[in-house]
């Protein structure tokens, strides 16, 4: 196993997994020239999924046993006792939304944990600010230039590869901005010098560009050019083009499904990826949220099926991957006048991995009676998001210095 994770930085060649079905042609041409020397043991890959728009955690994982919930959101309340589309009872207190059905086995097997009542100490209910605070990892400071995942890359204690941190988005998310190299790729197939319909001309152009960038007097262009071509060569486009997910996994054809599928490809290429980032949208359910059907249920099903497909596809790699979800805040406990919920405070998140202490809802949630709610309306934040992010980074990415990861945070870590 250790051997398979090995990676050689210079020379741009990755050591490919033996089980991948042959060495790609460009590797074949150069692999013989340079001996592959592993320089460090790669950490796991942490896959982060940001649910933008604020997911209603009280509907995804419902504290159905609290009678206040039914009072405050009669039109949105669900329970395990329902005959149709009933909740999946987790522990007599919480129930999993039926749309999360594809993930429920992992909870039962103890590989998936839920953290409830999680959020930011900053009380902002603005998507934009809350996302910014969660991604910078500094809930009370806007001037933090870097994102927490970018800092995590720098704290792994070893060199980075061009693919150490990859976001499957068009632009680099706030979480990954910062001093360390991070890559935003919307579509792996586009990560190549291309002349549409004429791959040969594309190759020739690539060759010209590589030499031109190598000769430029501008150091930044020279260095980035070198890294770009290294990264390009590391990427096994054949695997991308003819990709068949393992164990018959079927990804939903949605933005999240497509992103996770490409993350799976990158994991299998074994090119040193330790942080991967994907996004899921449509959680801002102010309007007609629905219960077992409707916009929320549909979105949650896509979320669940995408992650489940990814996990299935990761078959032989599951020991090397951890998935963590996050959302900027939760939604009001009461339903609003248009069949939805407004911006609230705490929500819930999911962590999936073979060595996660799962099968449990981690929470410090109190009663949902109005007087116990934050500002009489919202589920209070009882778990700081940094206690979860920090613990996951420590356990799965071997980030030791969590004080540097979350400057200013002095609370406990929540190990799962």
């Amino acid at each position: 196993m250790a051997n398979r994770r090995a990676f050689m930085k210079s020379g741009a060649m990755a050591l490919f997994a033996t089980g991948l079905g042959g060495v790609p042609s460009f590797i074949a041409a150069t692999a013989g020239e340079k001996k592959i020397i592993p320089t460090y043991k790669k950490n796991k890959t942490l896959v982060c999924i940001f649910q933008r728009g604020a997911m209603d955690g009280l509907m995804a994982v419902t504290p159905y046993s609290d009678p206040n919930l039914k009072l405050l959101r009669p039109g949105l309340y669900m329970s395990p006792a329902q005959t149709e589309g009933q909740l999946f009872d987790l522990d007599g207190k919480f129930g999993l939304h039926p749309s999360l059905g594809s993930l429920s086995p992992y909870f039962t097997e103890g590989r998936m944990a839920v953290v409830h009542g999680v959020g930011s100490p900053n009380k902002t209910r603005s998507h934009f600010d809350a996302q910014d605070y969660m991604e910078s990892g500094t809930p009370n400071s806007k001037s933090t230039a870097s994102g927490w995942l970018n800092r995590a890359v720098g704290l792994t204690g070893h060199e980075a590869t061009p693919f150490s941190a990859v976001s499957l988005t068009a632009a680099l998310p706030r979480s990954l901005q910062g001093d360390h190299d991070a890559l935003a790729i919307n579509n792996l197939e586009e990560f190549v010098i291309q002349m549409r319909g004429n791959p040969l001309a594309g190759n020739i152009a690539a060759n010209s560009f590589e030499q031109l960038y190598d000769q430029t007097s501008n150091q930044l262009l020279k260095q980035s050019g070198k890294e770009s071509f290294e990264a390009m060569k590391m990427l096994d486009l054949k695997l991308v083009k003819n990709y068949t997910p393992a164990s018959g996994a079927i990804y939903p054809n949605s933005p999240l499904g497509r992103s996770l599928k490409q993350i799976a490809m990158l994991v299998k290429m074994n090119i040193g990826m330790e942080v991967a980032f994907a996004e899921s949208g449509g959680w801002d359910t102010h309007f007609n949220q629905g219960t077992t059907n409707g916009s929320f249920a549909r979105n949650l099903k896509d979320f669940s099926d995408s992650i489940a497909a990814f996990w299935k596809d990761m078959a032989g790699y599951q020991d090397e991957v951890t998935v963590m979800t996050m959302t900027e805040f939760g939604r009001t406990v009461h339903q609003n006048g248009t069949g939805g919920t407004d911006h609230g405070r705490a929500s819930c998140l999911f962590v999936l991995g073979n060595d996660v202490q799962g099968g449990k809802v981690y929470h410090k949630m109190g009663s949902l009676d109005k007087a116990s709610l934050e500002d009489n309306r919202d589920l209070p934040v009882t778990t700081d998001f940094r206690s979860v992010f920090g613990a996951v980074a420590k356990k799965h990415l071997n980030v030791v210095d969590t004080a540097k990861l979350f400057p200013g945070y002095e609370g406990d870590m929540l190990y799962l």
Partner: protein
Amino acid sequence: MRYIVLIFIFLSLAFTVDPFNSDQRLQMPYKKEGLTEREAAEHLLSRLSFGGRPGEVEKLLATGLDKWVLQQLEQSLPDTDLEKRLSGYDALSLDNQTIVNTYLNAGQVVRMMQKKGTLSRDSMAKLEKDDYRKDVLKLMQEKGLKLPQELNRQLIAQKLIRAVYSENQLQELMTDFWFNHFNVSVTKGQSQPYVLTYERDAIRPHTLGKFESLLKATAQHPAMLYYLDNASSGSDNNAMNQRIKKMVPANSKLKKAAGLNENYAREVMELHTLGVDGGYVQADVTEVARALTGWTVRPMMKDGYGERLAKMQQSRLGKNVATTDGDFLFLAVRHDQQEKTVLGKKYPSNGGLNEGLEVLHQLAKHPSTATFICKKMATRFVCDTPSVKLVAAMADVFTKTGGDIKQTMIAMLNSREFWKKEVLRSKIKSPFELVVSAIRATNADLRNANQLNDWCTRMGQKIYSYAAPTGFPDKASFWVNTGSLLNRMNFGLAIAAQRIPGVGMNLLALNNNHEPESVDDALQTYSTILLPGRNQKENIGRLTSLVRDEALQARLDKALASTQSTATSEEDMTGGVDMMGEEKTPKMGKGKEKKMETGVSGQVAHVVGIIIGSPEFQRK
């Protein structure tokens, strides 16, 4: 007595005219730094415009360097071609009220219908169904309503078209610079409808005027008031407010405590004026926020609160409650009436609207602001790490002229640092600058901006969408990274091969309809056109060794023979957003293709593509 008054008037006149008239003469010391006039002209085009067009260096030399710079600083060159190109964009001249009542998303329309009772709860539940959605959109069409995406499309298109075609290039650069400095973003739903008028009314008129005018205009514009939440900031420290609260029943909405929001107050000091190390503390943030309580936006939605407010304002009491200035609204009942202290300066109680304006004035004239703003300008126009000396020289003029941006620019151009050899071409173009400079350098015809916008996004700059108030960072390392660099190269290849719908390029016309005789010749010709002022020998030498390789050339011939350059037909690139809200941007390279009629061979396009994607073309 009369004489004393006269003397006083005379003195005050002398004072307002003389000490403040520190207008300097433009004296650009390029010769002292060993530059020829031509090199200086090239540098000016590279820094004070979005890159030269073919033959523009010669044109600039004919005009004269000083005169050209002064014209750019005056920003009054006729722009008839640009105006013609913008005439089809009907949203550009609309006011905020029209915009917010015209560009509605489907959800807003449904809520509106619901309010009027034309929509039942039953049918609401069916909203997901496509046919229902069609009904809503049909209704929108009947009522002349449009989707917000269409507004965004026009906003983006006008920026690209202006940057390419405006004769007043510096004005476009400055608009880009100040917009980014006072950044707002269409990613925040509340401010999105106002971004177009923000750039047009709050930024553009002041780009080379006084800094304080910019600061005030941005502070009072709905886009900023919503973007940084000041619109919702209020206080209970208000006698009128307390009286009202006593009168209304316990469950009234008016009972709710008004909350202070410090978001804008913090950013106006950290990002707009003093800078993060500018000498303020958290207490100052709170005090500025208190001074700006009640600064909000006039309600503009039809049938809403707006009409009631207008009626109320006609009464005597109403005038004290709410003051409007355009779409800016000062709600006196939400203003904190107590005393405040900002950066050591006391503001007595009951300062009202004026108090906030005085705070902005205090911030604008603070020495930290002069340094912070001048450093940012020097970083944009000179180099990523300007010297302390240059910044100080600029800040001195900035302060003496009461924050005159034009005079500060002249101070920068009069500095030797601007002309230093190591400064030439040391900056990296942003993706937007790359795209615009490529079109300008090749005299291409920009007919539709949708695809170019997609390319900017792929290269890492989604314009008008930078979510954080910092704006895009102005340093090379932000723009140049592994992912974006390959896309820059691909952009070069795509645009030269005529594979970007909406952009027409005639490479033959660029060379006076003379077809290069060989690849070598093409290299020589187009390097000279696209990269004026570069060491052509060195540049061409590098490229030649690549294309002269005979084996390679044979492969290239063979490769390119199979795909001659093609252009995508016009019909498919109307783009835009249809009534269903789906963006009609044609997929890259998937439009109907037809043979290019310019007769230029694929090899020439290949060479031009490599030049545009090369490191040299990324520099400015």
